[in-house]
């Protein structure tokens, strides 16, 4: 029986963590993800779960402890945001290259500066090439569902990579919304026990983790790691299918919202997709063929699949909640534009920076983008050379 509840995003993922009952959680608090280790340690204190909580002195330490714990053979998780994720930078690569299936809850928040605590994707986007899987949520329900699926993907023998489960700071993490929870038993049965083949505490086998490798071996090692990321595509879809069987909720690499016959499309990640869907419903009533491609899986990057879903569009706006500081746009814009080029797509493409540091995105803002996309397809560019949504400008 599904359970109707109302929860914030942080409560939702913590509830999922409680149902999974992982072995070890090293964590250091940082807004807006602080509540997650708080809720988990409360469950531990109340005797509801027997996860070993390790209070550490920094995020570099929390990720290092997570690496040690995972290598030892324990199902491990942590949580962080913004500068905390940035402080983990060095060891994120160690977790991925040592093929340790750690789950990290990332509550997306702007990196400094200006120092700010609100939603932005610059933190996890900064770690996009660290070798971690990345799955994003639009709302609390998806954050909960993604958490339940995370270990199944990360721990799969063809993958064995760490995974970031991302949600937008405050907008998703702190806003309370309706949610449908699964009962504990089906979640436990779905996630299963973690029984790695090799681990440091295995008594009948010696093991070394993270050995030095000379140049004649490093390229081969990195290519093997890249293969795990490619293998994850099939596993993500298989796990989603199994999850649908227990939950009735269906997931893929991305969600296509009224995209099938759309001539004008937005591509976005995270909570703004709810606002975009409202704008689409409004414009559809007026007869405009508009749609959304909402990215769920950013790592591995399903470029070919996205380009295929967008192939009939006349004009596309790729939305980045992250400034790339490269004079060329944001990360989603860069990667998807490249994928569209490879797929020989003919659509006009614009990359828009929006919602930085929690800046509000309104239905009106989105309607404005679709109207400009129509003009763009007709050959008139009203976006300018470097579009920022809702920017005050001379």
């Amino acid at each position, binding site marked *: 029986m599904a359970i109707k509840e109302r929860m914030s995003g942080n409560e939702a993922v913590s509830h999922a963590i409680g149902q999974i009952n992982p072995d070890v959680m090293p964590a250091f608090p940082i807004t807006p993800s602080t509540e997650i280790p708080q809720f988990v340690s409360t469950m531990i204190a109340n005797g509801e779960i027997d996860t070993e909580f390790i209070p550490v002195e920094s995020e570099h330490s929390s990720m290092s402890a997570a690496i040690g714990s995972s290598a030892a053979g324990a199902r491990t998780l942590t949580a962080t945001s913004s500068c905390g994720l940035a402080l983990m930078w060095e060891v994120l690569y160690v977790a991925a290259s*040592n093929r340790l299936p750690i789950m990290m809850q990332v509550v997306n928040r702007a990196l400094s500066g200006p120092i700010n605590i609100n939603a932005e994707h610059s933190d996890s986007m900064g770690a996009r090439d660290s070798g971690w899987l990345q799955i994003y949520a639009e709302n609390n329900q998806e954050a909960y569902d993604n958490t339940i699926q995370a270990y199944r993907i990360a721990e799969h023998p063809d993958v064995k990579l760490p995974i970031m489960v991302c949600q937008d700071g405050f907008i998703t993490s702190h806003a309370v919304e309706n949610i449908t929870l699964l009962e504990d038993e089906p979640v436990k049965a779905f996630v299963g026990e973690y029984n790695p083949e090799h681990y440091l505490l295995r008594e009948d086998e010696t093991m*070394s*983790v*993270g050995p030095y490798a000379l140049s004649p071996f490093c*390229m*081969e090692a990195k290519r093997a790691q890249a293969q*795990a990321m490619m293998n994850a595509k099939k596993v993500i879809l298989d796990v989603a299918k199994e999850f649908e069987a227990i939950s009735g909720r269906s997931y893929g690499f991305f969600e296509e919202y009224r995209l099938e016959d759309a001539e004008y499309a937005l591509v976005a990640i995270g909570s703004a997709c709810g606002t975009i869907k409202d704008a689409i419903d409004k414009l559809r009533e007026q007869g405009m063929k508009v749609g959304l491609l909402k990215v769920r899986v950013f790592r591995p990057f399903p470029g070919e699949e996205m380009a295929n879903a967008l192939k009939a569009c006349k004009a596309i706006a790729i939305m980045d909640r992250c400034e790339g500081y490269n004079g060329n746009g944001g990360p989603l814009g860069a990667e998807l534009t490249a994928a569209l080029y490879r797929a020989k797509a003919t659509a006009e493409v614009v990359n828009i920076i929006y919602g930085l540091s929690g800046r509000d995105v309104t239905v009106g803002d989105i309607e404005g983008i679709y109207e400009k996309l129509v003009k763009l397809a007709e050959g008139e560019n009203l976006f300018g050379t470097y579009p920022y949504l809702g920017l005050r400008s001379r």
Partner: protein
Amino acid sequence: MALKAEQINEKTVWQDLTEGLQIHEAATSKLFETGEWRTNTPVWIQEKCKQCLLCVPYCPDSSIPVCENKREEFDYKHCKGCGICVKACPFHAIEMKEGK
């Protein structure tokens, strides 16, 4: 299929490496011939050697094998040529020679 450490060499293809280059065997450092790094080489002068064995514990790379309480020829596959044994020998029975 992942290979055993002794089967891995510079011709091994990426598909045959272990995940994350993890090693699931003991004593694989023997397979790593650090002697290749050597630029200068210690030479054992047997007639001066009193078999005091002081050089043995000083060697940081365990490259002086001992058999029945007597040292034997250097293990040049692993000796990095650091020269510590030369300093440790009270009888000048080890000399450094230039080159490998």
